[in-house]
């Protein structure tokens, strides 16, 4: 009978088999003997590569994009947005101050009724395969995005009634109704090549992984879970970029991003206020503290009895130390907002009355409204406790910290706030079914300050105010920014006075950039809008 070999021999053979088969697995003992310095450039920090053909810029991201196609653009989501804006062009580009500048479209005309936009395209833009970018590509992109089968975001495009390409350089878009922000929003969508995608199913195409664009950076490779590598497009119609290679590196852990910023392997990363202290001590990193358009608030569910009373809402607002939140949770990198606009918005109303933290006033208002403290300190009225849960997305860490501060503050005035963290999928579904007391989230009106859908009757949290409805409609009745501005300011006044939502704060974006990289100009949406002009010294 076959006698099995000794166990030791068996284990040894197993070990050898495993080692032989596993492509990258050396026997455990070896690496300790090797002297690291010479062979491994990765072990020692790679500073931003010096000038010359090898100049490389590495961007760090916590998340990986799902797709590199602009037709899959998750609006304003950093991992999708950055590679797509580097590899694809849009009709126009939004400049840092909010103005609209040319890109693929050299100029445009808007009909007096505001419904017809006629764009004249440049004749110099080319796809990376050499073919010219034409009006047919624009028409194709828009029509494909609007088809439900491509499962594209139709943001900015859903008010388009028709799009035509009368000749290779002219695009005519007719809207269903006047949309003041169409140019900024719709015009920012990346354009894809018709000649490569005409018969593709965009929800399944290889194009999502191997895109072909017309942008300043060409796609080189995408190693899943690791990095997307792009190289400069030497024939880019607005001028070849200075930095030769851009690497979009995926590092799911913020500590590792900080470590690599320190070692110089990473030249750009977004950091949070609590990372500031360690990062500020790194001399090779410069931090740009940039105010943004985004702000946070708590949307109360008006179906709940206690939220119906404006005095209660106002009391809660006075009962939260919002400046304290900015100081403690944001470490000062932000500001309190009194309505639905951040100070950097062109529509911002600086004259709004400030509701500074005033627990005494909060108590007085609640007493006056008939909410009296119960046995446990929490106020009650007609048998209902002033107790509610605030639903937030699980990834909103800073918001959670802010709400913890609010929770403590409100307990002092007899209001019980509890925090309900849920996954994004659950957040969306409960929001739709109105299964929440209140929810807190970020609002990011990047292309235009308008938020009509969030404030007029029929919004998701059931707030309704005829004065707001009228103003919101007026603000959308004209494209003239100078005419719209006072209307938005008036809206902010009304919404603030009515405490339509529990306004909280705006936060700044903190960009950590290698000190030897120059040319960055902060932008509220497209952080790398002028990457073409950046230089690495």
């Amino acid at each position, binding site marked *: 009978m076959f006698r*099995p070999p*000794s*166990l*030791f021999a*068996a284990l040894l053979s197993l*070990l050898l088999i495993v080692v032989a088969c*596993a*492509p*990258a*697995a050396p026997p*455990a003992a070896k690496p300790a003997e090797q002297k*690291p310095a010479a*062979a*491994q*450039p*990765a*072990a020692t920090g790679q500073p931003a590569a010096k000038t010359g053909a090898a100049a490389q810029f590495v961007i760090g991201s916590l998340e990986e994009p*799902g*797709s590199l196609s602009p037709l*899959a653009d*998750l609006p*304003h*989501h950093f991992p999708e947005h950055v590679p797509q804006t580097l590899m694809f062009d849009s009709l126009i580009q939004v400049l840092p101050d909010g103005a609209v500048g040319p890109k693929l479209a050299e100029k445009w005309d808007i009909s007096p009724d505001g419904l017809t936009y006629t764009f004249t395209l440049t004749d110099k833009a080319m796809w990376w395969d050499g073919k010219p970018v034409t009006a047919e590509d624009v028409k194709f992109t828009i029509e494909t995005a609007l088809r*439900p*089968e491509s*499962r594209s*975001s139709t*943001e900015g495009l859903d008010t388009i009634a028709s799009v035509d390409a009368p000749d290779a350089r002219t695009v005519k878009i007719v809207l269903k109704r006047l949309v003041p922000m169409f140019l900024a929003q719709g015009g920012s969508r990346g354009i894809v090549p018709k000649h490569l995608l005409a018969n593709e199913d965009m*929800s*399944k195409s290889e194009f*999502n*992984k191997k895109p072909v664009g017309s942008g300043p950076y060409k796609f080189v490779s995408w*190693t*899943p*879970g*690791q*990095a997307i590598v792009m190289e400069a497009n030497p024939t880019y119609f607005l001028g070849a970029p200075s930095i030769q290679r851009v690497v979009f*590196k*995926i*590092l*799911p*852990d913020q*500590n*590792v991003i900080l*470590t*690599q910023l*320190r*070692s110089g*392997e990473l030249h750009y990363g977004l950091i949070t206020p609590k990372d500031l202290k360690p990062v500020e001590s790194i001399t090779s990193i410069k931090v740009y503290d940039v105010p943004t358009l985004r702000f946070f608030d708590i949307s109360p569910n008006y179906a709940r009895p206690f939220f119906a009373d404006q005095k209660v809402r106002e009391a809660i607002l006075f009962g939260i130390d919002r400046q304290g939140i900015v100081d403690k949770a944001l470490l000062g990198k932000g500001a309190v907002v009194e309505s639905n606009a951040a100070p950097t918005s062109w529509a911002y109303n600086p004259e709004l009355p400030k509701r500074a933290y005033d627990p005494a006033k909060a108590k007085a208002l609640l007493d006056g409204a008939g909410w009296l403290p119960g046995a446990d300190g929490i106020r009650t009225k007609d048998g209902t406790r002033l107790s509610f849960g605030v639903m937030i*997305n699980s990834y909103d860490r800073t918001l959670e910290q802010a709400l913890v501060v609010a929770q403590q503050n409100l307990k002092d005035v007899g209001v019980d706030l509890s925090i309900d963290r849920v*996954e*994004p*999928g*659950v*957040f*969306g*579904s409960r*929001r*739709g079914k109105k299964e929440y007391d209140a929810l807190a989230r970020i*609002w990011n009106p990047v292309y235009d300050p308008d938020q009509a859908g969030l404030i007029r009757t029929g919004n998701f949290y059931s707030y309704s105010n005829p004065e707001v409805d009228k103003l919101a409609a007026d603000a959308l009745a004209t494209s003239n920014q100078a005419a719209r501005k006072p209307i938005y300011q008036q809206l902010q006044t009304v919404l603030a006075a009515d405490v339509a939502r529990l306004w909280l704060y705006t936060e700044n974006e903190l960009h950590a950039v290698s000190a030897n990289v120059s040319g960055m100009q902060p932008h509220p949406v497209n952080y790398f809008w002028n990457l073409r002009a950046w230089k690495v010294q």
Partner: protein
Amino acid sequence: MLAFAVRRTGQIALTLLLLLLGTFAVLRAAPGGPAPVLLGADYWSPEREAAINESLGLDRPLPVQLVLWGRAVLVGDFGYSYFHRRPAADVVAERIAPTLVLGLVAWVLSLVVGVGLGMLAAHRQGSLLDRAISACGVLALSTPTFWLGIVLIVVFAAWLNVLPSAGLVTIGNEDSLADKAWHLILPALTLAAANGATLVLYTRAATLEVLGADFVRTAHAKGLGRRIVALRHVLRNAAIPIATVAGLSLAHLLEGSLVVETVFAWPGIGHLTVSSVARRDFPVLMVIALVVGCIVVATTFLTDVVYRWLDPRLGYE
């Protein structure tokens, strides 16, 4: 032997089937769906969600969805990832190899070191060495993997600058085996730590139990050398409980560790599983369930075979 194999195959098929049914049911029962993630928080509306659900076939009755999925899988069509917009099988296939490599290397490392130290501690029971090894084992077991990973990165990558902090390989150096091996060290150490600790403690306990047996005293009395007694008699008999733990831990390591993969930016299926759950990417999750199911079933089967090889008395039932 043949009957054993046939019976086992039947059991495996049934296990996998139940696993897939269970995964399907749990995923569909969970609240929410892929629509909120696909639309983005700002663009979400109930109408848009309904439209997406309809286009993805998620509004049909569950049994219908299950049958459709099953039918497609039988011809090799695992569907398209909602989020990645590519075949779900491709998305998983791209990330299997890093997890397997990391898991196998960590396992071998933990096995060799764990069993070795465990045996050593048992043979020198009560000595300072034994106490030191046991203490280290308990320490390694209680250390959170996340913390250990970060500490290793801080010490070896940030301070000493001798090892890379994250990633599979240096970008641009994808063909270098040595570079990949270099990147493998820290994650493998982190993953091996807790697993190795378990093995140390189990091996020590199992060996101690055997050391007290009569036949060991007989072997010594016969005049056999210490090394031969330790390996051929003691280890051979302690091997079965050790093999159990080793086999289970192999399955566990091959499933992919979310923590290690996140900290070291190791593109494996552990991280993919968690992010796909958050996104409700059902096609990808079903493929992962199938793959992980096969892995666990295979390692369990292998462990069973190793048992019978270690102890022929067990036979094949």
